[in-house]
């Protein structure tokens, strides 16, 4: 009766025509930013934002998102939606990276990655504690016969009528990789925007750089959160809600998510940069 539980019939393949239009939009946005802003710095910032957005969109594919079936122990993964998980991992990474923003780009991005990965590692561990000791179910994947890393067989642990349950080792590893990529991507977006705001805002506001710092940090932060959520939700649309981790067949859909994230980040990034550049 209800269409709410139904999954849309998203095919695995890419639509070449739509992807071509997407790439054209991407190139037009990059060219327009260069023409309007007229500085190499704005262009570099936009490229950084696009790379960051792609990292976020790609990273979401690794995270074992279980949704409501996982909460009932009928599917593997963490029992919540992509938007919540990605926001948690990405914002944890963003806060970590923002602390290290003064240490230079590389250290800040790595710190952000570690922050996101740590957050996912802790989440996955306690999710498994609750599954194993609280709900009394073993961890088993329904999508593969053997765990690709440990080689453990899965079928004998899987309950009948379910798609697997708990958080198998590969899903845990996927969660940590996804959190790391997401945190690093979110931090890269933040650092790129922070740099351009710190450079441009003093002239625009006619104030000292030290006075401008809270505004630059806040603007970069809110734009980074906005872009992070847009990319995470687009990636969630790509995997139609649930995924087990990197071993899931849905993982092979990631190329179109990369195109999608690049286009979305380019459009949002251009607007975010134009707020100071024109």
């Amino acid at each position, binding site marked *: *009766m*209800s*269409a*709410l*539980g*139904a*999954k*849309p*019939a*998203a*095919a695995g*393949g*890419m*639509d070449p*025509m*739509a*992807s071509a*239009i*997407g790439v054209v939009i991407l190139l037009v946005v990059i060219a327009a930013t260069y023409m309007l802003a007229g500085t190499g710095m704005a262009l570099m910032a936009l490229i950084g934002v696009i790379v960051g957005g792609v990292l976020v969109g790609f990273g979401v594919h690794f995270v074992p998102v279980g*949704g409501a079936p996982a909460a009932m122990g009928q599917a593997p993964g963490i029992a919540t*939606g*992509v*938007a*919540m998980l990605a926001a948690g991992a990405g914002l944890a990474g963003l806060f970590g990276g923002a602390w290290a923003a003064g240490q230079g780009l590389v250290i800040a991005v790595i710190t952000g990655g570690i922050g996101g990965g740590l957050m996912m590692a802790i989440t996955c561990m306690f999710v498994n504690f609750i599954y194993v000791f609280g709900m009394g179910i073993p961890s088993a994947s329904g999508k593969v016969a053997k765990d690709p890393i440990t080689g453990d067989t899965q079928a004998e642990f899987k309950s009948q009528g379910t798609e697997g349950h708990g958080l198998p080792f590969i899903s845990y590893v996927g969660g940590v990789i996804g959190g790391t990529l997401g945190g690093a991507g979110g931090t890269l977006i933040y650092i790129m925007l922070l740099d351009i705001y710190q450079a441009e805002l003093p002239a625009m*506001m006619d104030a000292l750089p030290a*006075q*401008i710092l*809270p*505004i630059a*940090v*806040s*603007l970069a*932060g*809110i*734009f980074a*959160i*906005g*872009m*992070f*959520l*847009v990319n*995470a*939700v*687009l990636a*969630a*649309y*790509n995997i*139609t*809600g649930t995924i087990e981790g990197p071993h899931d067949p849905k993982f092979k859909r990631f190329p*179109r*998510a990369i*195109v*999608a994230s690049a*286009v*979305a980040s380019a*459009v*949002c990034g251009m*607007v*975010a940069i134009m*707020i100071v550049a024109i």
Partner: protein
Amino acid sequence: MSVKVEVIEGGVPHNTILAAGLVASLVCIYLSYASTFLGAPWMAFFGGLAAVAALVWGSHTIKHLCSYGIGTGVPSAGMMAFGSGVIAMLFATKFGIMAPIVAVVLAAVIGAILGFVANNILNMRIPVMIMSLVEMAIIGALVLMGFSAQIAGTFELMGLLSGSISILGLSLPSYQVSLIGGCLIATAFMLGGIAIQHPFNACLGPSWTQDRMLYLAAECGFLSMIPVAVMSMAIIPMGPALLSLIVALIGWYYTYAKYIELSKRDAYDWLDSKPIPELEGH
């Protein structure tokens, strides 16, 4: 009852809600601009009312989109709305009095591109996807602009970036005591995000009724308006901030009472029980 979730039976058609929400929201945002002529931002509470109008429209758009089964849960649509809306809204504030109009146009462009990306590149193939994401981006931008106007008393970029702090009777300009410098906008972002995703998430199901969901949306909007009014005390004078708080409390109480009444109407039966039973009955 055999009402199908995916079909809106009876009630107000979606396009009417769209038009009413858009017009009411824009008019209320512009009414908040009138405080420029009053000396103090007495009209700031109209910003909150604009946000409530947009949220009511937004909850219906989410119903429209999510009845196709996007597979990612209802909250993701709200996050998408505000993620794209905040970008359009902040850029639009550069344009002074034209800001609300620019925000609507720019949000529509961003929403259309995101809709194209989701529908064609990601192969979602949902008929209302592009239109819904356009609406969601506009709603996100209008809600944030409304809350910003309520907190800062203005929707112009300079007013949002800089505030004033009084030390020993001297009024000094300060960038930290402002909507963006203090990052109050992040709180407004989440308050709006929660308010937009909750109504349909709470009311969906076979016994969904339109008026109940819309009252819940208004209730969530006024509930978010209460902390926004409290935050505005830091930036605008106490009088207008208290006025916003009173308007929000009255609006919240009315819509909450109405929602409870409609819930009892739609329920098969109801029983007033204590929240925590005193004795475990085995």
